[in-house]
């Protein structure tokens, strides 16, 4: 049958050789059967198919009629001889050295089965004999002596032991129980609670009573409750041959048979129950041990590394939020500083230009130099605008870098591309002021006006001297006055022109200041906004990512914890179930 899935649950569970025998007995199923079946189910549920196989074999063995008494022990103790003496026939080979290689199973038969040599070195030999003791339901198994751990003989001895309902451990009187034998006894009594000890060769050793007492003491020391019966197979064989009851009594075999009847045959069901309980107990122990280890390990704290990661992610989100408020304030401050600096710079530079214009027009005649002046003015203002806007760009790059470092610690620094549109050149030409020139006609007119009054004043004066109004003197004075008037008028006009030019320049620079300033401020605002929005956007996505990762870690942690808790619950439930089963088994013992 395929070991594995089929055995788990359902009707296929009990499909194994020997089923029909069991069905027949279902009516009178012994109470231990339920416990054993529960154990088998538990083993199947825990995927221990090795245990299931073993227990099923055991179950089949226990349900067979007749109780198996396995004769075991270290080599050379007289196991085979004891079996032969017990049944009064040479059914097992006996020799001075390691003789028994395979187990011999001796059971009841109406007529003796012919002795055959072992078919191979692994399968047990079967022998049938018509004996009252065997007929009462005893099956004797002579097993090979224990040897080195792991050697095939030891393995066969252990295999025979695994099927034992009761065990007869054989030691001899030539020495007290050795530590190895005591270990074997402890092992055997765990495997199968019904244990007897036969102390052989008492015909040979003068001090066998002392040895027997010492052995009983040692058994009590290691806590194995087993009846020790001193026997002599040699005497028994002689007694059987001579039909000498006295000798039979001396051989100790009468006692041994009595003990076998008392412990095994009186209540075979109880022997089977104890064997089943021991087997189930051992199998359960194998299930419980790993579960308990898992349960104990399960209450340990959760994955500390994941927890630390989660905490770190949470802290990062918090930090990003804090930073966002801080860098926005900082950006606003920086921009305000920048605006004021720019304003001051612009004002400073335009004032310097105006001072130069003043100085210039104190001497120069706008009428003559106007074209050169407008070129100069244009260049100066352009350069002011360039320097100023260059400075603006530089400062903004610096601010952007600073804010980026703060706001977006690990994002790419916002490029200066944002600031590209600023720095438009100053293009507008200066409007020409109305500068009146001193035309020759005006000069004539002014000269005439001056000369007229001069002529009139000196003509009137000279009329007093009897001279006509127009006389050479008055003519001369008129000419002098006219010339002076023209001269004065020219000076006055120059002054006026210069004043007009200065005013025009002033107004022009004011215009420039106003409009460029406005433009620069607009640009600053735009850049400020763009920068802020961009940074907010990046910071936001960063924060989102951090929050997302924190959430993921937390979800994983929670899932892990949930898994662990559910597994722990499961383990605890299994453990409780198994422990309950074990308690039932303990009670059945």
């Amino acid at each position, binding site marked *: 049958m395929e070991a594995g899935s089929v055995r788990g649950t359902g009707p296929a569970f009990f499909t194994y050789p020997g089923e029909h025998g069991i069905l027949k007995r279902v009516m009178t199923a012994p109470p231990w059967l339920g416990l054993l079946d529960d154990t088998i189910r538990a083993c199947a549920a825990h995927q221990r198919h090795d245990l299931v196989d073993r227990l099923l074999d055991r179950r089949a063995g226990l349900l067979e009629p007749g109780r198996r008494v396995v004769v075991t022990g270290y*080599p*050379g103790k*007289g196991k085979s*001889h004891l079996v032969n003496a017990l049944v009064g026939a040479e059914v097992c080979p006996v*020799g*001075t*050295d*390691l003789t028994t290689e395979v187990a011999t199973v001796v059971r009841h038969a109406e007529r003796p089965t012919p002795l055959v040599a072992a078919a191979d070195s692994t399968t047990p030999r079967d022998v049938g004999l018509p004996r009252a003791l065997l007929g009462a339901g005893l099956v004797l198994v002579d097993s090979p002596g224990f*040897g*080195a751990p792991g050697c095939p003989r030891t393995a066969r001895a252990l295999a025979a032991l695994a099927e034992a309902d009761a065990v007869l451990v054989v030691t*001899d009187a*030539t*020495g007290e129980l050795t530590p190895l034998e005591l270990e074997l006894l402890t092992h055997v009594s765990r495997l199968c609670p019904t244990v007897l000890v036969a102390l052989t*060769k*008492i*015909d*040979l*050793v*003068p001090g*066998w009573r002392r040895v027997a007492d010492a052995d009983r003491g040692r058994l009590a020391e290691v806590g194995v409750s087993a009846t020790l019966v001193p026997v*002599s197979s*040699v*005497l028994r064989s*002689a007694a059987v041959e001579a039909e000498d009851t006295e*000798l039979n009594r*001396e051989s100790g075999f009468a006692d041994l048979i009595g003990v076998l009847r008392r412990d095994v045959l009186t209540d075979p069901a109880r022997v089977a129950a104890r064997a089943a309980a021991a087997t189930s107990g051992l199998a359960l122990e194998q299930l419980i041990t790993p579960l308990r280890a898992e349960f104990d390990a399960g209450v340990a704290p959760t994955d500390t590394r994941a927890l630390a990661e989660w905490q770190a992610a949470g802290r990062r989100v918090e930090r990003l939020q804090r930073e966002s408020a801080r860098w926005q304030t900082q950006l606003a401050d920086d921009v305000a500083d920048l605006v004021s600096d720019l304003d001051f710079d612009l004002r400073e530079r335009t004032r310097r230009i105006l001072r130069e214009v003043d100085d210039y027009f104190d001497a120069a005649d706008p009428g003559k130099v106007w074209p050169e002046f407008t070129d100069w003015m244009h260049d100066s203002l352009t350069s002011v605008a360039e320097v100023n806007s260059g400075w603006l760009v530089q400062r903004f790059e610096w601010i952007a870098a600073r804010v980026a470092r703060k706001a977006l610690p690990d994002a790419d620094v916002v490029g200066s591309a944002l600031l590209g549109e600023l720095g438009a050149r100053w293009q507008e030409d200066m409007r020409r002021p109305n500068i009146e020139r001193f035309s020759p006609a005006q000069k004539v007119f002014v000269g005439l006006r001056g000369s007229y009054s001069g002529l009139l004043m000196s003509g009137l004066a000279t009329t007093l001297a009897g001279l006509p109004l127009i006389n050479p003197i008055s003519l001369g004075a008129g000419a002098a006055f006219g010339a002076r008037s023209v001269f004065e008028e020219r000076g006055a006009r120059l002054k006026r022109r210069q004043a007009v030019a200065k005013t025009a320049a002033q107004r022009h620079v004011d215009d420039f200041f106003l409009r460029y300033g406005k433009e620069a401020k607009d640009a600053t605002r735009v850049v400020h906004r763009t920068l802020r929005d961009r940074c907010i956007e990046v910071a936001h996505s960063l924060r989102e990512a951090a929050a997302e990762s924190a959430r993921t870690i937390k979800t994983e942690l929670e899932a892990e914890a949930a898994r662990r808790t559910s597994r722990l619950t499961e383990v605890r439930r299994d453990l409780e179930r198994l422990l309950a089963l074990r308690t039932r088994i303990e009670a059945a013992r």
Partner: protein
Amino acid sequence: MSTLADAAWDLLARAAHEAQPIAGVAAEWAARFDGPLRVEVVGEPGSGRSTLVEALAGAPFETVGSGGDVRLRLVRRPDEVSGGDAVSTIVVLSRADELGGGRIGAVDGARAVAARHARGDVGEHCQAVVAVAALPAVGGLRLTRADATALSTLASKPEALLSVDRLTAHVGPELPAKLGVFGVRAAVELVRRGAAVPAGLIQLSGVPDLLAAVDAHFLARPAVLRARAALGALLPVVRGHPLAAEVERVLTSAHEPRELRLLAELDSGRVTFGERDGEARHLLGGLGTAPATRLALSGEPYQAYLRWHALTESPDHTHAQRCAAAVVARTCEALVAVGFVE
């Protein structure tokens, strides 16, 4: 004096001039160099150590509890043996009468078991396996007149011999304690046949077999074994000392222990050259180490060398045989070169 002994003596003399503890060990072993071979008897409690030591009293060697040149290893069962220095060990299957259930033929059965194990795994760890039941041998020498009377009364009461309890009931506890059940049964049989009881018991006990084995494997060349033991004892104390390399070299290159080992293997039947076993035994010094004795069956040493060397490369032989032939060839080589074996 063999060359291994010479080399060992030389090394001990040099070591005696070194610092302690080397000098102490060297002096101790040098002092024993001329005494009798010291045979150490070792075994678990209850293995019959003291009885065997008693049985060996009067033998031409000294029995000691520890620090011997060679050892007798007492075991109750052959499978207890594992490990040990083969050349200097003989395994004694003690209390052999119990192995066969104390029957008259028990020791003979044990002898067969011993021989089988000597050929098997146990033989790898010792020179020989001998079955001994020392108690009857020792007890036989202490029989009193009363014991003799008791034995003769027992001769007519076979039912009394069945068990120790019956014996005790008939003749009291002393006689079974002295001889053991096997000893009493054997003694009664001897009485019945009219043979001398103590001598007969000794013969049955296997003690003569043990003495013969000791004689053959240890006493034939005591100097070699003593030198080996001395160097073996010196080796652990000179570790790290310039002498260590030399001690090791002498120990590993010595040929005589290999001869002894091969002789033991020929005896137990672990190795055989068929009809040439006799020649091999002679060459290996099994009948005497004088060159003439060694060459008694071989004639010209160089021709012998060629014959044995041919065997080392013969495809008709097993690996074990070829290795053994190499040992014999090496002996022949030495005989050719210097007339004696190093």
